[in-house]
């Protein structure tokens, strides 16, 4: 399994042996379900998908669930033989994520335009602080690679679920804060825009749909965690001006020094409400 290859937990999380304090099955299940989605998306982006990974994804129950989530794969994913699919996706992965001229799924590149900038160092520090060591999978990965960042959150969610299960609500709370902090400092700053970019650039429906899934999931997570974090990846869509809904007249001068002429010509002052 990819997670085991990439993120190793050398220190076991201590649950302090506290009595189980109302661990709602629901909360635990949700944490675990979220962790699974993170892990799935991590598996999509961390390296070229293996035959086993794709086989598992193409099982009817998985496809059904993904369809329910709104993912619409084309025949290139559903119908291709597994060997062809593995090869095609390896090539597409290289084009999108590993080749010159592509879009490295790396926070440093997306936000600083270069590999190995501050996000790389910061994420590595964070992993270390929380007791994780980064190992290569089939290939070396950067600490701020999207797959690793997602996998990290998956690990924290699992720990959080384990904490709740063992009745350590304080630890679960602390982990929740870590996850939120990580979203605000890292994932939240780039994955939505980046996912949109991949959605538009991918030629294969597998990456297109998975990128769409990532974008939707990220938006959902941000909302659910009640975070306010702006996506700084410039790949986000630029909303056409015509579609922007405003509470005020965007063309209205902000100082009062020179408005009178226009307003007077229009026959007097108008309320902001009328201008909507």
């Amino acid at each position: 399994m990819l997670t085991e290859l990439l993120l190793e937990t050398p220190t076991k999380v201590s649950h302090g042996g506290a009595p189980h304090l109302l661990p709602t099955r629901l909360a635990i299940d949700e944490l675990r379900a979220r962790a699974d989605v993170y892990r799935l998306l991590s598996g999509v982006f961390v390296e070229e998908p293996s035959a086993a990974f794709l086989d598992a994804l193409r099982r009817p129950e998985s496809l059904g669930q993904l369809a329910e989530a709104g993912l619409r794969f084309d025949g290139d994913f559903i119908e291709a033989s597994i060997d062809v699919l593995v090869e095609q996706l390896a090539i597409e992965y290289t084009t999108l994520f590993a080749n010159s001229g592509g879009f490295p799924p790396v926070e440093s590149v997306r936000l600083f335009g270069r590999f190995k900038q501050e996000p790389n160092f910061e994420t590595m520090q964070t992993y270390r602080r929380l007791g994780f060591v980064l190992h290569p999978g089939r290939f070396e990965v950067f600490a701020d690679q999207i797959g690793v960042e997602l996998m990290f959150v998956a690990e924290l969610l699992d720990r959080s679920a384990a904490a709740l299960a063992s009745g350590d609500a304080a630890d679960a709370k602390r982990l929740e804060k870590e996850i939120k902090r990580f979203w605000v400092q890292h994932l939240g700053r780039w994955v939505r825009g980046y996912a949109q970019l991949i959605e538009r650039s991918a030629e294969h429906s597998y990456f297109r749909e998975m990128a769409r899934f990532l974008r939707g999931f990220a938006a959902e997570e941000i909302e659910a965690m009640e975070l306010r974090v702006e996506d700084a990846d410039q790949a986000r869509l630029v909303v056409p001006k015509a579609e922007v809904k405003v509470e005020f007249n965007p063309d209205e001068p902000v100082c009062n020094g020179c408005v009178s002429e226009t307003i007077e010509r229009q026959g007097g002052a108008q309320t902001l409400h009328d201008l909507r």
Partner: protein
Amino acid sequence: MEMPKVTRRTFLKVSAGSGAAVAAAPRLLHAMEADLGGKDFGPVTMAERKAIPINCHVCNIQDGAIAYVENDRVVKLEGNPEHVSTRGRLCAKGNAGMWYSYDPDRIMFPMKRVGARGEGKWKRITWDEALTELARKLDAALKEDPNTIMLKYGRQRTGGVIDRFMHTLGTATLLNHTSVCESSKKVGMEPTWGPDIETPDFANAKYVLNFGSNILEAAYFHNPLSQRITEGRVDNHMKIVTFDVRLSNTAGFSDEWIPVHPGTDGAVALAMGHVILRENLQDSEFINTWTNVTVDELKAHYKQYTPEWAEKISGVPAASIERIAIEFASTKPATLFTYRGPAKHLYGSYNEKACMMLPIMTGNIETRGGYCLPRGMGWPQPQPQPPKPAHGSYLADHPDYPLAAHKVSHLVPFWIADGKQKINVYISYQDNPVYTNPGAMAVWGKLFKDEKLIPYYVSMSPFMGEETALADLILPDCPYLERWEPESMPNSLWPWVGIRQPVHKSLGESRENRIMMRDIIWKLDPDGKRGMKKFWNFKDGEDYMRHHFDNIPGLKEAGGLDFMKKHGVWPIYGKLDPKSGKVVDKTGREIKAEYGLFKKELSAADMAGTTVDGHGTIMKNGAAIGVRRNGRNYVGFPTGNRVINVRIDQWAEYGFNPMPTFKRIPWHETMKEDELIMTTFKLNVHKQSRTAAVKWLAEIAHSNPMWINQATANKIGVKTGDLVRVESKVGYLVTKAYVTEGIHPKTVAIPTGFGHWEYGRLATLKLKEKKAEYSHGQDDADLNNVWWDDKGVHPNNIIPAVADPIGGSQGWYDTVVKVTKAGPTDKYGDTQGDWEKHYAAYKETLRYAYTGDLHRKMHPEMASWAGPASVKHKTGGGH
């Protein structure tokens, strides 16, 4: 009290009169890098950054540098204050070197081609898969003939690894890039005095003749020599005269810029020699003692080269030639420097030789302020070493160019196309001939795309250059900040060895060259049974360096590799004085260089077992080790006979003029009124092909309009910014004009390093048009602002191959073009070269080789030469 009245005139006067006081006034503001002496602090954290001494390798000047590392990444590069040549200062390119490591387009994993060649479809594969595939191809090639494995390198500073690799495989098909660089300069110099370059002592000279070298911006050794020439100009009030077709910044900095017709510097130099000898201003004692000709022979030979003759050819007034010659010969000390200007022509070797004769005949050799031998250091190789290949390679030692000791690699595509040598596996290392060579895509692109001629092509590169884009397999090499390499470069008067050491772990799965070559050999010979593995018996790059640095006498005692890792360079001659910027001894005085190297006397031990021939050559074990003059035994010059060979007998053997001479380029003589000569040049912030993706540099210079003289532009009705169509006999291009007085009216010049069609997003600006979707670097002020959309136009498609029949150099500055105002269908950036036409040009240049039909015609003075069949030694050249 009345205020003094200060006008511009008065303060100029005050400035002129108070120079001494100004010099003595306290200077409280010093350059920070010099003052801090190799330290740096984070502006936010104020914590001292980790300082790792390295050797710069953005270009090949090899300055000593320090990489400052914060949070495991290089945040700043600076000159190493302990480095005697660099003295704590880097050029703009050197400051920007970390962009290579962190380039978003860097290739960090092996990749295998999956589409058609050049289609751009790749699959990432593991190292094991890559090595297995390559080993299979090499194995098959080895079975057929080791020489079918070819490696061509561009910039290689591995300290011997590439030769080790090729020798281990038993192939002699090892090619370099030197013929598109400076080979005719080297071949003009080597048989004359030994080394391939000079070290001008600019700091102490009183007079400098600069032929076609842009020291302040680009030439060898740009950064160290810029410092010295500025010192000489400012502190020593020396005069500089620059001969160049273009008003470069060095020409502008000079006292005089003499625009010269391209390719005629040699004629000017010979005429100056004529004046010096006619006026008896030569150093007779030096000539008679240290050269293989007498003053009388020289005078008789130079009689033909009158200033009037040179004026007709070069356009330089005879009176200027007379005056400058006399000034040069009567000012001591004086020096001379050349770079590509004289050498990159059909007969570049003759031009170089003619230029270097001036310091020779005036005795300015190895004097303070004069024209000095280069100083360098070597290092021992790890043992055992593989033997040299059993058989020579046609491509590497072409029989038509026996004197071209640095090969004629730019003609290789034509030779392969002609079936002269079969290639099974072609490996390139830091070499992008598809961009850098004459014919560019039209020639090398065609070669690499042809799977019959090149069945398997491997590129060792961290970047998707124009050549790598055509490969079958890419092995991700490391940029210079992640490599171990020994270094030495004669870039000042003090010899040194330096080290390049990784500043951090290489990114992704990049492997430095010596490691990937080791891994290839280990794959081929896993158990050592094939006898290859024993030559690659080292753990890692550091282990390899230990073999070099722990075995250099002197350095070994100082700590060997450990000393190098700490200081980056050895020896450390003194301390950098932050006020003067000079290296000083303990008493605060500037350290002095050693001069007169050829006058060192041999010891009694050296002399044991020697014989001395009739010319005074001291022989030991079959080799010349010195020369006896006036009863003393000197070490002399590193030539075969230990003196300066003004007459190169070996050249005569091949029907070339052994004495200083000049040959006009025949097709320049027959140029029509509306024809011009196209030259190229480098800007100060770029190197040949690998800096266009460096943002800090690209922002400063990203496009390359063609320089054209005002009068010439007027004739064709062109203004600055207008589109022009430039046509040569092999193709055409469309670019913008930059109209200026700063260029010879018969010349146009296009800077190189621009107009990439590969090399990443910043070099190609391919993703620029989709900015909203694809741009990146929101948090980076530099990348968030790629405001330009002009990437320039690359000229090489329209430059035909020319080969100096002696030195093998490409005649970069020999191209005749017609420039017209662009037509309605011409678009900026259009460029087209034609293989057939390039091939015809190659055939034409072969006619000038010593075996060609035009050779004799070009050398009527060698009428007594008995022709190619008379040649006894089929190979030679160099030293």
